[in-house]
């Protein structure tokens, strides 16, 4: 590893740490702007009860002190107690939900990347032929569909009309539709990305050279072309994770998957402030780390890239 790359990594790491810190700060102070505190939206408890509650959650102390306490808690992985779900810690709820969401999102991500690369390569190899056109039309259509539209339409077709998949994510096979709804958009995007970079690579001189000296077509494709064509896909991996995370919020709600996304949405509806804060910080950190990893991998994979 040369020193330039090391410097780049250090720079990006610093930026990531600053951003995560900023997210925590924004989340904390924005949430504390809510007039009257988190208890007021309820059916107005008596002043004595409010005071007791505020003391219990440490809300009577000055904001700066609360902030420091909150920061210290996060360092230890403790997001404090949930305000609306009695007796549950935010951290436990997050970890519980995340286990389910990780399975859902992880599978969707793998499917999207694998299928996308394959479809994109096929489209590029058969450039301007029927199969290429079909792939392009379908992916163009899918890229214009928000995740909740894909999810609700899949629900309508496969649960209501055809009835082969359960509409509830808890049942066996219930994760199939959520996974499909989450992976369709990133898959289409990956396909288009792979196709254009593959077309670019296939017209390069070294591919012609390889063909001319009699390398087997399959070897040219996998060893020479694909390797170079997938590099831009690596940069998309970060934004893709971000898309899957935000998409899973609605998809988990639609299919009643007991994951972190559903937890987040219901915490918004219930105005469960500590839960909203905890989940935002957790997911935000996750997105930033994934972006960081995908950016660094890109530079490692393709040494030609100028380090900025």
């Amino acid at each position, binding site marked *: 590893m040369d020193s330039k790359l090391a410097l780049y990594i250090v720079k990006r790491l610093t930026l990531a740490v600053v951003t995560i810190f900023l997210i925590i700060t924004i989340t904390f102070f924005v949430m504390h702007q809510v007039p009257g505190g988190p208890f007021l939206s309820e059916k107005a408890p008596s002043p004595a009860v409010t005071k007791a509650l505020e003391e219990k959650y440490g809300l009577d102390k000055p904001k700066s002190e609360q902030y420091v306490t909150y920061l210290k808690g996060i360092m230890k992985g403790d997001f404090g107690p949930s305000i609306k779900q009695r007796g549950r810690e935010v951290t436990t709820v997050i970890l519980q939900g995340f286990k389910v969401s990780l399975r859902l999102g992880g599978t969707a991500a793998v499917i999207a990347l694998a299928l996308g690369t394959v479809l994109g390569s096929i489209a590029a190899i058969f450039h301007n032929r029927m199969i290429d056109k079909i792939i392009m039309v379908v992916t163009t259509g899918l890229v*214009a569909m928000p995740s909740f539209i894909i999810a609700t339409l899949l629900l309508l077709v496969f649960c209501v009309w055809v009835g082969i998949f359960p509409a509830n994510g808890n049942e066996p096979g219930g994760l199939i539709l959520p996974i499909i709804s989450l992976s369709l958009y990133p898959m289409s995007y990956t396909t288009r990305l792979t196709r254009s970079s593959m077309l670019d690579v296939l017209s390069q001189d070294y591919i012609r050279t390889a063909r001319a000296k009699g390398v087997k077509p399959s070897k040219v494709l996998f060893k020479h072309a694909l390797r170079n064509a997938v590099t831009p896909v690596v940069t998309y991996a970060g934004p893709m994770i971000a898309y899957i995370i935000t998409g899973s919020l609605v998809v988990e709600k639609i299919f009643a998957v007991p994951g972190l996304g559903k937890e987040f949405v219901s915490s918004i509806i219930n105005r469960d402030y500590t839960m909203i804060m905890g989940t935002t910080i957790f997911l935000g950190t996750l997105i*930033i780390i994934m972006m960081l990893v995908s950016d660094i991998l890109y530079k490692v994979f393709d040494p030609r890239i100028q380090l900025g």
Partner: protein
Amino acid sequence: MNNTNEMPKKNPLGFQLNLKDFEKATDEEKAQQVRMSESMTFFKDGMRRLRRNKIAMTCLSVLILISLLVTFVPMVYPYTYEQQLGVAQGKRIDKTYNNLKPFEYGKTELEHIANGEKIFPHIFGTDAAGRDYAIRVIYGARISLLVGFFAAIIVLIIGVIYGSVSGYFGGRTDLFMMRIVDIIYSLPDMLIIILLSVVLNQVLTPKIEGTALDKIGTDMISIFIVFALLYWVSMARLVRGQILSIKQNEYILAAKSVGSSPWRIIKKHLLPNSMSVIIISTALQIPSAIFTESYLSFLGLGVSIPMPSLGSLASDALSGVYSYPYRLIIPAIAIWLIVLSFNLLGDGLRDAFDPKLKK
């Protein structure tokens, strides 16, 4: 004696000037200098290219058609988006108006028809509260388009000003301004949007009560605030990059040396030359804003009730999806059509205006 009208003969090896080069041009030669066609400005050139792109032109017509529909249909339509047809003053709620299938009529309407009166049909039926669904979809599309356009304008203004200032002044100013952009760029936007709309809702509602802004609703305002806070960064980056490279040209140096002010240089030289990047990314900003708005509405954070949005219509339809699937399909198709058209139009604009792609 030589004839004075004739040119003196040139010695082929001599260094004299060839006097034939200085003869007056004939009319024929003059005619060749006349411009063959009208001069092409950058914008005209791009538009000509765009007009040849059939897909982009189809999308543009679809979008114009949708815009006309959502502007003019509500003016002549006999129902409004919030009117509960079964509710009349001093009478009990007429439940026959709730959940009408397409082209069905409520009880009192059927009586009117029996008397020979003409009643405008409920093309898409009514929703669970007895509101005409077609007009709600049209209003929803109107909201989506408005959000898209306004968000794009906000992003355009902030992004262009920020990017051009940062790119023009360069140096430490640029470094500082771009670090801010880097940080905002790496914030997970959707999460921050959700967070801000939750909070802004609570904070803004009492403040704007009774003012003109009240009509727009806090949710809409918070969406715009969020766009103004977060979404301009990619535009700023693009504009800055463009300006950094244009700045190197000699004509900028020339402009500086005759004493043009920075503002004038940015306005007259730098921005017109980065127009292609600005047009393309504004066009692509619109569908992403529509995406975000419908997503938030679907989560229940978008426009406020009873104002419909395509996202909230889809979300409401979800509970009755077994009995009334068309209520889900109609807004879904509307969103899809709008976003798809903007995407393809944006692609077409890129092909037409990006000089790098010129053949």
